[in-house]
């Protein structure tokens, strides 16, 4: 009973901390500024841009991360240790440093060629997606590897002894059994992408109606010494981010139980 109460208290403390911080925004809340922010085309653009970029970068990251994590979980191969080591690289270097590294990459011959012939990233939408993608890929692989590790290899082996090809066993046995990990990875990486700021700022710039995501809009409000505007946009980001995650969690859970 004691354990139960202690752990619940810890859980509620998490809510109190984050809830308290969000509630503290009320001190600089200005209803007129908030209404104006909600009604402005510029805010709507930022919301749309943030949602689209975060979703695209998350899907791209999962597209890479699912097979990569499976390989790390199941197969010994040359370079595996190195891959494992590099996964936390985006977390260790700060987001601003990650953005700077991307910019420096675009100054080398390969980066220059890519920008000139394939796709222009700097100061463009593609730059937002790239900054978010690079930030979340390592975390996505790490989380998915843990999810695959939790699925017993024996189940795949049984399926294959019953005649299922490896690919079939992966899609019908491993992937469904790792669904909770997949859902968690999607939610965490999407949320991290939505809130990504440092690398995006470095690579994609701050122009409204072009590359101004919500986190960048918040920074520019603060940079204009407009604290009420900052608070209004933080509330928009919090509401949209938490709202979207709440809905996603419900949908994914009900789909998983179906």
């Amino acid at each position, binding site marked *: 009973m004691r354990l139960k109460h202690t752990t619940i208290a810890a859980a509620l403390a998490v809510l109190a901390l984050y809830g308290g911080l969000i509630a503290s925004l009320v001190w600089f809340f200005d209803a007129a500024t908030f209404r104006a922010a909600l009604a402005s085309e510029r805010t709507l653009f930022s919301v749309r841009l943030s949602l689209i970029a975060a979703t695209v970068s998350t899907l791209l990251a999962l597209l890479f991360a699912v097979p990569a994590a499976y390989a790390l979980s199941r197969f010994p191969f040359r370079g595996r240790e190195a891959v494992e080591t590099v996964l936390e690289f985006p977390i260790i270097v700060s987001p601003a440093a990650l953005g700077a590294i991307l910019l420096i990459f675009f100054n080398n011959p390969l980066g220059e060629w890519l920008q000139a012939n394939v796709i222009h990233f700097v100061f463009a939408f593609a730059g937002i997606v790239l900054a978010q993608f690079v930030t979340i890929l390592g975390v996505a692989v790490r989380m998915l590897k843990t999810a695959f590790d939790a699925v017993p290899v024996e189940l795949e082996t049984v399926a294959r002894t019953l005649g299922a090809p490896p690919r079939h066993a992966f899609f019908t046995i491993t992937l469904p059994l790792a669904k909770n990990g997949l859902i968690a990875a999607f939610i965490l990486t999407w949320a991290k992408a939505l809130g990504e700021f440092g690398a995006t700022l470095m690579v994609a710039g701050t122009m409204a109606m072009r590359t101004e995501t919500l986190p960048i809009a918040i920074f520019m409000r603060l*940079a204009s010494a407009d604290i009420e505007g900052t608070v209004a946009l933080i509330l928009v980001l919090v509401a949209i981010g938490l709202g979207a995650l709440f809905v996603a969690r419900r949908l994914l859970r009900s789909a998983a139980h179906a």
Partner: protein
Amino acid sequence: MQALRSALVFALFALAGGASAAGRLLVYAGAASKPPTEEAARAYERKTGVRVDVVFGGSGYVLSQMKLAKQGDLYFPGSSDYMEKAKRDGDVFADTEKVIVYLVPAINVQKGNPHNIRTLKDLTRPGLRVAIANPEGVCVGAYAVEIIEKAFSPGEKAAFRKNLANYTESCEKTATAISLKMADAVIGWRVFEHWDPARIETIRLPAAQIPRIGYIPVAVSRFTRDRAAAQKFIDFLTGPAGQQIFAKYHYFATPEDAFAWLGARKPVGGEYVVPADWRTP
């Protein structure tokens, strides 16, 4: 309520600053003067033993920080417009304001001028990638917009806007945009080429195209706990030792120096209201 609010705000910004105490000064500074300000802070420490902590950032950003944290001894923005706001809002003691150096806007390009940009009009050439600082929050961006608005015809303005890749978030990032080849040209400060002489070259604008020159002011913050100590640092910056440091980085110490370089007298500082279509292009 007030105590709780202060505690919260203080906790949020504790990492950004640190409380000012005896024998210590906290300066909120715009990044437009970063290299010499850092050097001046160290020189002042050596001379007086008073430690000078400097929080650098966009001029508006650090003003927000100072207001929210309710601390800091001096406000040292990158240009005059945020000082006007700080004075209006009572965040600094207006009578303590002093100008430290003067800034002249110019075009900045990569060293060697690979795109052969000679005039403002060259920035309208199809295919060029141009950047300016965000005119909403960064002073040098507002200067750039004013130059474009006054010098260009509507057609030229449209061509320039077509080449305008994006806005940078700070004064120093505008210089970095040239260093890291994010843009072919920016409209920044003349002094940028001295920040990164190996990569940045300044293209001088004719005096007729420069509506006004900028200046970097400093004033004592209303949150200071030791106004006299803060004033002493201002005296150091305006004195010969401080001015020598700024001169080393090629800032103009007087408006006359700037006018001599420009070849004409121009209005100094003030605020420019950026037209709405630059805020939401």
